[in-house]
Each structure stands twice: as C-alpha cells, then as structure tokens.
C-alpha cells in the first residue's frame, strides 16, 4: 500500500493520451489539470506513510519529476490550482506543493536547466520539512544557490499570503501582489516582474467590482494582462461577459 501513491503519480501521465492532438477548449483545461494537481497533492500527503529515508527520497524524486513535467506541458492550467482553498488537514501539503510549483515556474522563466529545476523543486517542496514528514537532513546534498533561495522565498511568501493558516486574515491575489511590490528590496525585482506576468491579480473565481459599479466573477484570465481578466456580471437577471482586455474603458476597482 505504501508504494501505490507514487505509482499513481506516474500513471496519471496517461490521462493526456485521449486528447485529440492536445486541442482542448480553454474552459475545459482546468478540469483535466485539476486531477493532475490532486494526484500530486496525494503524493505529497503520502510522504508521511513512507518508511525509511530511501523510500521517502524515491517518492520525492518522482513527485518532483511529475511537477516539472506538468508545468513544462501546461503551465497555465496547473497554476490555476494555486487559487484553490484547502482545509486545515491539507493546508501544509497544499502549501508545500504550491511553493514547489511556483518555484519551478519561476525557475523555468529564468532559464534553469532540468537538473537545477528538479534540485530547486526538491528544496521548495520540502521547505517545511518535518511538517510533511521529511527528515531534517535528507536533502543536505543539494547545493542551493542565491537565486534558488530568492525564488523559494518569493514563492513561499506569495502562497502564505494567499493561503493563510486559519488564525490569519486571507489576502486576495491582487492585495498579495501589491504587498509584494510594496516590499521593495525584499525580493529580487526581476522575479517579482515574472510573478506578476504569470499570475493574474484576479484569478478565476475572484469576486470583483468594476468601475461601472457592476459586481461579478472572474471566469477567465488573460495571459500578459494580469489586471484585465474576463468577468461575468449579472445585468438585470442576465449573465453578461466583459473581456477587460478588449474593453479598455472599464477596469476593476476592487476584489473581495
């Protein structure tokens, strides 16, 4: 039983085969990738049941391979899962996975080779070592560097602010990015720029108010335009879609 979870991670790769030429309508992408994210999450949660350092190390390496593969194949839909909320029992596992995925995304944009990406992904995934069942000294053989440390720090702060423990106030994605931008000098500005380009200020599902005073829900993000997603509003009982990347006279005034 203890080995099955890691095997499931690899089996999930087969899900892609049924897609016709990889042509999937944009609105269906999250559904497929959600299960991939969930499979990764199950793998992280399964680390606690592993016996011995060799078995934990083996599972970690498989998880990291899968995380790097997932992001290489479809960055946007994997990243959509970062705005999901989790209960207390899953909190630390989801946080560890999110920090890993964010770090790999930033590393990819910085041109890391696959070996360096995987080393950093291991460090990011296990940054809260004992909380997810990884022994303190298991990864001491990895040579971290300043750039990796900066990437993991930024990813950790972003995910902590958007997914706080129960005792802290939750910030919206837009407030979090503003907080990070405010902290001039704390983070590498080039990394912050990438984070803003890759993550929407208003992820799917965000409740927002427009400059027209209409309130609605973000149903799709526009890559490269983090402050101008597609919003669905209720207009006298009728659902209306406004693409803010095309309708430049309207903007978001706040989110909830």
């Amino acid at each position, binding site marked *: 039983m203890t080995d099955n979870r890691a095997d499931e991670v690899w089996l999930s790769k087969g899900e892609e085969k049924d897609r016709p030429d990889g042509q999937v309508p944009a609105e269906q992408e999250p559904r497929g990738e959600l299960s991939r994210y969930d499979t990764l999450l199950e793998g992280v949660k399964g680390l606690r049941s592993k016996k011995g350092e060799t078995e934990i190390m083996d599972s970690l390496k498989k998880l990291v391979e899968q995380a790097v593969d997932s992001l290489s194949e479809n960055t946007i839909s994997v990243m959509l899962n970062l705005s999901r909320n989790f209960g207390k029992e899953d909190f630390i596992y989801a946080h560890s996975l999110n920090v890993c995925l964010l770090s790999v995304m930033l590393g990819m944009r910085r041109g890391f080779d696959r070996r360096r990406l995987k080393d950093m992904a291991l460090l990011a995934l296990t*940054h809260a070592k004992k909380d997810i069942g990884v022994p303190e000294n298991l990864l001491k053989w990895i040579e971290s560097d300043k750039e990796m440390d900066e990437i993991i720090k930024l990813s950790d*702060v972003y995910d*902590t*602010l958007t997914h706080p*423990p129960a005792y802290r*106030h939750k910030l919206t994605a837009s407030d979090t990015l503003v*907080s990070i931008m405010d902290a*001039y*000098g*704390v983070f590498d500005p080039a990394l912050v720029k990438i984070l803003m380009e890759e993550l929407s200020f208003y992820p799917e599902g965000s409740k927002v108010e427009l400059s027209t005073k209409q309130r609605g829900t973000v149903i799709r993000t526009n890559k490269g335009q983090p402050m101008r997603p597609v919003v669905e509003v209720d207009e006298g009982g009728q659902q209306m879609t406004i693409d803010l990347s095309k309708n430049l006279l309207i903007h978001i005034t706040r989110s909830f």
Partner: protein
Amino acid sequence: MLRKKKKVLVVDDDPDTLLVYEKTLSAAGFKVLKAMNGKQSLEEARKNRPDIIIMDIMMPEADGISSILKLKGDDRTSAIPVVVATSVEEMEDRTVADSLGVAGYFVKRANMDQIITKIEEILEENDRQQS
C-alpha cells in the same frame, strides 16, 4: 543595562493587550508607542522610528505578514527589528516570517518577564551589529 530609553512600538488590535504591554514595558523602562492595525503601525514606525516593533500576527484589518513586508520594504523602517507575537504555539507560516528577517517570536501568553528579556536581547544584539 540599557543606556537610554528605548522605544518599543506594540501593534495589536486588542486594546486590553495594548494596555498590558504599555504598563509592563513602561515599568521596565521602555517608551511605549502603540498601533491597533497594520496601517497605523506603518505610520507610527515611519514617524517615530521605534527601536523595536512587537507585531501581532493575527490582526483582522491588515495582515501582520503584509505589514512586515511593508516595513522591510521601506528604507525608513527596514532596519527596525520586528518580533512576532502570536497566540498559537505552532506558527504554520514561520518559514515566511523567518525569510523576511523577523528577529524573534513569542507566544502571547508567555510570562511578561520572559518577553522583556527577549526584547532586551534583541535590542542589545541590534546595537552590537550597528556599532
């Protein structure tokens, strides 16, 4: 032990807790500045330049971590040591606070003498680093 009156900025949304800090820290020879939320703490820190800040991590209005980010990102306040006060033993977001350069932690229900000792240790260490 400390040559001149050091300024401690205490940030907490609970007025009773602020009062306890004020009385105890004043009696211990500190000048106490107070703020009830993150926004006030930034204004107070920029205006009065405290020697140390005690920040409640669980305030409802402005999140403590984002307030620390703002303090660390401002040249006027970035060098001020921040101590995190929390009501829970296990701080799940401790790695973040660590990476932002938080100087220390204490659980709010800790003995006030222990808290004062911690503050003095941090201030002395800070003085050593600056001299």
